């Protein structure tokens, strides 16, 4: 963690765009993205579970690509890269994103610990591939584990959000 005075670990100045805001922090090279958002910025929505890039609970977006924040170094977000966490998904006025609303509507969570990572992963997919079919959704989401729901309600949520996010057809 920064500010703890470890002599052997040099620090650098990180500049990135976090949930739409330009931020700057002096942090150690060993700082992971999870450490950065949770410890430095108090954004505890990003959860750490397996801590070895397997479970996907810590998924955040870096320039719209999903990464495992537990292992991704904050250093690799330098140079003004856009980092998006679950806290940056809803609209500034608090209106829920269609994905978030869909997760509520389809009961796509129980304990909720995997949920931020699920939503970030799904968001990355729907932004890149708005017309992904079910097989593609499953293939993309396969890197996010859930122990509570049995997955099907999450698929239903992604598909509901997909429909809601399509541009409205002209009437």
């Amino acid at each position, binding site marked *: 963690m920064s500010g703890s005075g470890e002599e052997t670990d040099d620090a650098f100045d990180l500049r990135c765009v976090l949930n739409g805001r330009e931020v700057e922090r002096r942090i150690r090279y060993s700082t992971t993205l999870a450490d950065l958002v949770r410890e430095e910025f108090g954004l505890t929505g990003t959860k750490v579970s397996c801590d070895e890039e397997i479970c996907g609970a810590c998924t955040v977006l870096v320039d719209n690509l999903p990464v495992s924040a537990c292992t991704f170094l904050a250093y690799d977000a330098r140079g003004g890269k856009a980092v998006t966490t679950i806290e940056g998904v809803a609209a500034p006025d608090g209106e829920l994103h269609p994905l978030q609303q869909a997760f*509520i509507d389809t009961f796509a969570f129980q304990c909720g610990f995997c949920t931020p990572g699920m939503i970030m992963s799904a968001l990355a997919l729907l932004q890149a591939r708005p017309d992904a079919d079910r097989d593609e959704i499953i293939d993309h989401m396969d890197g996010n584990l859930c122990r509570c729901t049995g997955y*099907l309600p999450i698929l239903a949520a992604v598909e509901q959000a997909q429909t809601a996010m399509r541009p409205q057809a002209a009437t």
Partner: protein
Amino acid sequence: MSAAHTPADRAFRYVNQSVPRRDGVEKVTGRALYASDITLPGMVHAKVVRSDVAHARLLTVDVQEALRRPGVLAVLTGEDITQLPSPRYGHIFRDHPVLAIDRIRYAGEPVAAVIARTEAQADAALQDVRLSYEPLPSAMSVDEAIVEDSTTIHQDTPAVGSFSGIEYGHGETTRYRNICHHNHIEWGDVERAGTDCARIYEHTYEFPLAYAYAMEPYVAVADYRSTGLTVTSSCQHPYMVRHDLAAVFGLPLSGVSVQVPYVGGGYGSKSYTKIEPLAAACSRKVGRPVRLAYSVEEAILTTRVAAAQMRFRTGVDADGRILMRDVEMFFDGGAYAENGPLGAQQAAERVVGPCAIPNVRVDSYLVYTNTAPSSSFRGFTATQPTFASESQLDEIALDLGMDPLELRLRNTVAKGEEFIPGARPLDGDVREDVRMVAAALGWPSRASGEGRGSGLATMMLTGGAKPVSLAQVRLHGDGSVTVYTGTTELGQGSETVLCQIAAEELCVPLEAVSVAPRSTSLAPFDRSTGASRSTTLQGRALLAACADLRRKLRDLLVEVAGVEASEVSDTDEGFLTTQGFYSFRDVLQAYYGVPEADVVGEGHVRQAGDLAVTPVFWETSSVGVEVTVDSETGRIAWDRLVVVGDVGLAINPAMAAGQDLGGAVQGAGAAFWEELRYEGEHLATPSLASYRVPRFSDLPGDVELLVAERQDGAGPYGAKGGGEGPVSAIAPAVVNALAAATGVRLRRIPLTPERVWRALREGRR
């Protein structure tokens, strides 16, 4: 019966509706707080030094070098622990030291705790703690532990914890070594019945070591002060933890508070005391709040699922009626008792499944081994014997040339029938549930043999555990309501269900009901959150609290309005008197004269009346699966799932269905992939990299979730508990489907491709 207010002629307003979850917005926005998110001012961090050997005399723990590391404030060792009023804890047997004192009993056992300003600093100092020990022979499995010349894992008989009625050690038999608990039950006469049987079958089934994998690993933030101890923990049973903390530190219960935010998964693995005493001891040592957070690897070393070897000897008459069952089963409990003894004890009764067997004899053993401790898991030792009993039913059916469905229907207990002496008669219609599954599958299977097959299984377990729960409901001056409950929110939706019940009973809008933060210092005692008991028992206590609230308001009205009690009649939203209508808030305003006064209703349940007989309810579920087997690779494709949840009445149907699906998938993990394996003294599967759990792509394309709502439970509106059913029934259903598909019978799970491939090659029958 439950004293619900809802008149029979009014439709439910909130109950039996799939209302959105109370914790929904918090969880989808990342605002929901878990114990792992909690920080306190001045908080420091602890990390645990773990033993490298499975069994040893611990001689010295040298912390001098570690103390010199940057940021390190203190190092806690077993010597500090011996200074405590009770160095050992355990709700059944107090055999578990907070840190190893003079003995190491499993590789990975906590031996010291380094406390430093940051987590990284604590972590960096771990390697500088030097242990010296004398290795002892280790017993790494049941087979090694029970033989005469095995090493002795626990020398002394431990003190008993707060549970009663569970005897330590061998009981009447001394045939085996390292027995933590032995339960022997019998009724009828198994020997005589054996002579009446047309056929007797004897098979041994094996259930593996497994891991619950709650995605939030154990974490506790402890604050030990002169005014009392407060611990925030990701735990299921805060009152039990409080009890153990009070005993360990010699504190009055009034001086200990356990708080539980949202829990990131429990599944029984967070039942009972885990890391809280260690976190509290660290805080006491440094005089500051301490955060102790485990990794997944450490969580595996803290609590796992008991493996079981089960020998089932079952005798039938010429018509396939089961006349006798004789069972000997061994549970691999690991190094400490934890909840293992209760599991082994209860498993004994569960060997009958929901079958009416007139002659039964069971010996169920919990064995100490030098492995990570086992404790509760979802389905709580119904899972292991169910795997055996439901597998064997199919083996018997095949041998007799009978349809497995027909054999089950012939032997399954009828609703209302007593089938275990002294226990509650079966309150569910299991025969009908099994028929529902079979019908949904299109039984007899349209795909049988040539690599495709169907299988079905049913299960039951004793639901409700100990029926002691208290609840309070507070009516505020504006008519809104807060529920005070000790039931924790693990994801199962207890918070939402309790809001629905309170809104229903008090006829207030759902949005006007809140649940107070879960804290033992706020809410009255709730025994536990587990055994599928929350809706049923805490729900009943809440019903009683709502009725008490109405009574209290009534009394206040009589007093302030100066009317006779007989002149006041109850309506949904208030009272009708000769002076007109009073809403609840009108009563408060009239009585106190200020708009913000409130009144509290209290309710409880205990083991009396209709809850005198245990279990509180029989939790039962029936499942069916279809699989396709690739004989070249041994890989099994899971094509279809049907689940029937027999829940009495679903307070929130969407949540109930979610519990069934989630449980089925978790159970499928055990059937197809999940196994912890030891190689020598250490785990060969220490993390998720080697322990495979179900994923999106594993789900069958065809899933049908059915709910049986016959309002035949002891809970509110006839509800029963759910959530632990399918997890137990899935594995035998899959194994039965495999047998139908290939003719090959496996008596050991998980059904890894290698196991299946070998069995196909050997033509195992």
